[in-house]
């Protein structure tokens, strides 16, 4: 089960309303490489994993990502608080506003709703861990791109924190993949699927 802690992992305190930033940062809420995708990817993959260590790691990172999902929502919520129709039109936020007002909806920056089509659950240990490493790199690049586009230091503090978490998660998934490979037949590590074949 899950239980709620009434605190973020890193503080979100954004002084200035700025829907123009919310327009693209929303991609890390419900976009192709966003935090919801990350959390559901790891929390869904863990059931077929063959060792307690892998089950633990994917649970622990999946739970942290769910916390990041809430942090990105906090950024969007604070960037869009008390915005006026003039600010909305000027920022080009009108296309989002007409559908969701100031609600926080999981979608790509381009407007496509969040979709499970962006995550993989292949049921193969090597394949799933390799996807996870790729996913962390894609999220890191997205945060790099956000840092190039955003000039608000209150926003960028949080983005820098979230970006660094992708680097750490990549390292842990890589270590887990290495431990998995070491246990397999070194003459042919692809002899069978360690998540399925005993």
């Amino acid at each position: 089960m899950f239980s709620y802690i009434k605190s973020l992992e890193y503080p979100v305190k954004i002084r200035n309303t700025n829907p123009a930033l919310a327009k693209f940062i929303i991609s890390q809420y419900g976009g192709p490489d966003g935090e919801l995708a990350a959390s559901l990817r790891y929390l869904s993959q863990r059931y077929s994993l063959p060792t307690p260590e892998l089950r633990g790691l994917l649970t622990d990172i999946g739970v942290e990502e769910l916390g990041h999902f809430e942090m990105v929502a906090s950024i969007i919520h604070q960037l869009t608080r008390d915005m006026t129709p003039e600010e909305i039109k000027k920022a080009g936020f009108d296309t989002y506003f007409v559908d969701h007002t100031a609600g926080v909806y999981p979608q790509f920056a381009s407007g496509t709703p969040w979709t499970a089509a962006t995550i993989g659950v292949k049921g193969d240990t090597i394949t799933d861990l390799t996807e996870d490493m790729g996913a962390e790199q894609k999220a890191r690049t997205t945060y790099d791109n956000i840092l190039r586009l955003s000039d608000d230091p209150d926003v960028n503090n949080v983005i820098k924190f979230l970006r660094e978490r992708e680097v750490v998660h990549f390292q842990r998934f890589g270590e887990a993949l290495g431990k998995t490979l070491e246990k397999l037949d070194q003459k042919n590590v692809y002899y069978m699927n360690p998540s399925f074949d005993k």
Partner: protein
Amino acid sequence: MENMKPETGSDCGYKCGMLPMCAPLATSWVPPQGENPPMYTPAEALNRGTLFPGLDLPFMNMVNKTNPYAGTPLGELMALAFMVKELQLYLDTHPDDKDAFKALRDTLALKKEANERYVKLYGPLKIEDLENADRYSWLDGPWPWEYCERMGK
């Protein structure tokens, strides 16, 4: 290079890790972090987004010097909670590192004290914190996503 000198459990410095001498073709390898790696203080770790200087790889050298709750009771608790999370992920792939496990236990004890101090002053962070409360204060604001000038307190 300064950081390539052996300083920790790994033979090639805390910014690098040891790869197998000989590994099967068609596999990908990430150098594992050596045991007993250097660590930031909890407050610094929260600012940087990692407990480990070896993994601290910022984009265009953009780094946080502080955070909005630094020096507040909630900031102190967040820093300890973050250190616990980082040690947890480290131990998931290094379960036999006794020093890291001891650091986890010590940090959990400090976090428990910081949590008790915070709850006494500002109210519950989890439902268990209501055990000795005089009323149902769970609904008191602010919720974590709300902008609040005094947030962190």
